[in-house]
């Protein structure tokens, strides 16, 4: 089972409905600022932010503070977007490879997830709904802001923006309603499944890299370690694992009774060890 986690950021309940059902998420009980859904294992979270930049900004920050694995999660902004007539068909999903904003010069180039059968396209985020379909890109009201906030908090390879074209002409915009959105998202769920699997695997890598050694809490709960001693302990624990995979540290230090003697013992053992390359 993956140790990774996915955080979905979605503007509308109708965009989220299929995902919530498919991934068996349930609404978090209690008084939350935004509707938050999660699965039984708590490794998949979803926030419904509402439309627009302020909403998405607040929603992202809220989910970030609520999800215990937010720092190593794979974050996905998913939703519908308008598009120029020539960009694609209604219901066609796109992985965004370039994010622009109508009011800001800053351009983001999200990490391109390999081997996904999703077309790539540029997305431009506006303050207001748009109806100019002569453009050669997708447009929405959240994507850039989502990325702008999340990239400040977590590594960029764990962020994706995926949009499905909901309207590409003045006529098509008239047919957008809850059922319509829900249907064409349901039709494209397999693409999201693939993206999600990939997201789990990347998040898993990051979780593994950042995870605390299993003995760290046990040892620091038993004895008082200063901040710098904690850092030293973290370092020694990993090195211990790498160098002495068959030695049980816990049993070797069971008779030691303070932080300093534990660290001295580990340091001395590591210092006298010669790496075996064969």
């Amino acid at each position, binding site marked *: 089972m993956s140790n990774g986690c996915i955080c979905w950021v979605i503007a509308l309940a109708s965009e989220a409905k299929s995902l919530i059902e498919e991934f068996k998420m349930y609404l978090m009980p209690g008084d939350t600022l935004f509707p938050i859904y999660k699965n039984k294992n708590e490794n998949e979270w979803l926030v419904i932010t509402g439309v627009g930049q302020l909403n998405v900004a607040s929603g992202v920050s809220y989910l970030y503070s609520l999800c215990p694995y937010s720092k190593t999660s794979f974050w996905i902004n998913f939703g519908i977007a308008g598009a120029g007539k020539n960009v694609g068909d209604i219901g066609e999903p796109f992985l965004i*490879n*370039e994010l622009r904003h109508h009011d800001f010069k800053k*351009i983001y*180039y999200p*990490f*391109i*997830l*390999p081997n996904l059968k999703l077309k*790539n396209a540029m997305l431009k985020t506006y303050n207001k709904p748009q109806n100019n379909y002569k453009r050669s890109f997708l447009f929405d009201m959240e994507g850039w802001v989502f990325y702008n906030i999340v*990239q*400040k908090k*977590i*590594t*960029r*390879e*764990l962020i994706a923006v995926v949009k499905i074209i909901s309207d590409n002409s003045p006529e098509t915009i008239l047919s957008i309603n809850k059922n319509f959105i829900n249907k064409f998202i349901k039709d494209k769920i397999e693409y999201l499944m693939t993206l999600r699997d990939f997201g789990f695997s*990347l998040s898993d*890598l*990051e979780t593994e*890299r950042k995870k605390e050694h299993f003995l760290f809490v046990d040892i620091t709960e038993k004895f008082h370690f200063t901040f710098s001693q904690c850092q030293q302990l973290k370092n020694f624990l*990993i*090195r211990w*694992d*790498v*160098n002495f995979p068959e030695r049980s540290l816990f049993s070797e230090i069971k008779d030691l009774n303070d932080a300093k003697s534990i660290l001295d013992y580990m340091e001395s053992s*590591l*210092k006298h060890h*010669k*790496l*075996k*390359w*064969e």
Partner: protein
Amino acid sequence: MINQIYIENEIKDHPRVQRILKKFKRKTPIYIDKYASVFNKKNQNFRIQKKYPSLILAKKKGGHVLKTPSDFGIGNSNNFYFSHMYNCLYDCEYCFLQGMYSSADYVLFVNYEDFEDGIKEKINFHKNERVTFFSGYDCDSLAFEKISGFVSHFLPFFKRFSNVEIELRTKSTQMEPLLKMEPVSNCIVAFSLLPAEIANKTDHKVPTIKKRINKISELALMGWKIGLRFDPLIHGENWKNIYKELFADVFKNIDKKAIHSITLGPLRFPKAMFKKILDMNPRSKLLSDVLVLRGNKISYTNEIELEMQSFCIDLLNKHSPETLLFSCKGNF
């Protein structure tokens, strides 16, 4: 495997870019204003990118040719390096590039002619002196040849300057351009080598030591000048025996007459980069060894470093003339 291609707008019509794009017909490039808008941004994960690297085609502006650190050289007093590329196809645990950039994407600077101008400028300045240029400082000189055409372009250029040497530093066994041309007398093809037992654990995606030695042997027989780079020297249990075996293997298979120079260098990381490197590879065996802060570098203790250096020098002197041997102290 290239994940995505980015191209700076300024060079989108450059013939070298067009030629490279033909090799990636199924990729749709993304055009960007400057390579720094994708490369080396904050909050990028070198390890994830290393699995799925992108190629960025860019134009190098300024700083085409730079002076090497003071103790970096193979006999000449004027030493310069130039980097037509940032990052490497290979993934070696001791490589400083992991700490240098937060991106593992490959940046290929296609304006080779500007590098040539920078090189000519240095050559003219040191007209009657011997000068060595090093490529392969921020990348592998040959590993990306099929895409970059770097060696095929630059060797004919360097051939024109008799007072100049060019070192191509590599771990690659893709020697196509060299095998197709007559040896260039002022070119040194320098191979990084370490004992196979260590390389198997530290050098990822890299041709084995056996393959590297076979390739060196082939080039030597053709008449190419060979550089042997035992840099970094890596410590561990039984290190004396495995280095002894490596040297014996190398000198058994390579025509000594072809050896231009041999260099030794200690394992070292710039202090500022080490934390980043360790953070990205917390479970690296190499990095879990006892490494200490010495000045502005993280390395083995002085005692280990000197012992390794002197043991290897003694052994190498038995195999080759002392004059070919150079050691790099590893200052940054």
